[in-house]
């Protein structure tokens, strides 16, 4: 039995910081975070067809006064680079990215590795502050502060979910 108790901690960081609007292209790992959000009647979760749509949708929601997060795999980060840069960074729109980190420690699929290795540098290149908590304790120590920084700075932030935290995906 895989321990997925970490996922509720991620969902709780988001909810206790007043995030109620979520967009996602699910993967195996973020689906554990989505379960408590889907079950919460106060939360709206929109499944989009491509992650870039989620950037637009959550940016619109923030313009209309609602905070939100985009839950996706790091492959999806590649799909939303232009929207993050030209919309959120350029216009100073804060959203939270929750990214399952495939393509790093323990990865079994060679096709995941290039984007997995590029995830941090892509975020750095856009000036998006990110954390990669290796444990629930690290997540709890850093998560609230990261989300608060997003609103203070009016820029996106990202939580990378590494296999040390989530158990990863076994091939």
């Amino acid at each position, binding site marked *: 039995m895989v321990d997925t108790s970490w996922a509720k901690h991620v969902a709780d960081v988001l909810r206790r910081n007043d995030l109620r609007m979520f967009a996602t292209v699910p993967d195996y790992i973020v689906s554990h975070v989505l379960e408590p959000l889907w079950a919460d009647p106060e939360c709206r979760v929109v499944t989009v067809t491509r992650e870039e749509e*989620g950037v*637009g949708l959550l*940016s619109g*929601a923030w313009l*209309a006064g609602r905070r939100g997060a985009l839950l996706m795999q790091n492959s999806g980060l590649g799909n939303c680079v232009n929207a993050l840069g030209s*919309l959120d960074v350029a216009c100073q729109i804060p959203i939270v990215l929750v990214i399952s980190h495939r393509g790093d420690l323990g990865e079994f699929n060679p096709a995941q590795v290039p984007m997995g290795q590029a995830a941090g540098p892509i975020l750095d290149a856009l000036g998006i502050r990110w954390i990669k908590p290796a444990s629930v304790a690290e997540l709890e120590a850093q998560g609230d502060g990261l989300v608060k920084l997003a609103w203070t700075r009016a820029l996106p932030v990202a939580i990378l979910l590494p296999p040390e935290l989530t158990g990863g995906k076994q091939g």
Partner: protein
Amino acid sequence: MSAPLTRALATRLLAERLGAEVVVTNLGQATLELQQAADRPLNFYVFGSMGQCSSIGLGIALARPDVRVICLDGDGSLLMNLGSLCTIATEAPPNLALVIWDNEVHQTTGGQPTATAARSSLAAIARGAGIATALEVRTEDELRRAYDRVLGEDGPLVVAVKVAAVRTEGRLDRDVVGYTRRFRQALAAR
């Protein structure tokens, strides 16, 4: 047959009827023409995110169901984000209308033809995505009647407006951060 519609005229005809609606404009000509026709705090202009106009509008519509949201998109840009039509159909916000200026070319980059110049119909694609009310209009009369529905009917609605490939001259005001703040404050005050 009457002269083909122009985007500038179609924009003015909408602008003169606007009240408390939010309008989100596609980058380039759609933004320029709305800035010229009616710059107002409840306009949100897209400047660099090709394809994202309808997604931004959907987010606003879901977050503020009490406000009517009208997107002014372009054929080239919507073709880049056709999945957005499926998401709009699935979420089905009654307060969202998507007006598409369909000039069948990538106007900003020199007039290269898009797929709507050949065989693709955005209204048909929208219906296939599951948006029940999806119209294509070609004349001023049809457009005025379509605006009645955009401004008065529950959505989601899609109106593809066939317009001439005419370029509007002028300079965009690109105060992207200023417009963002102005829009957010204006919507919060509503």
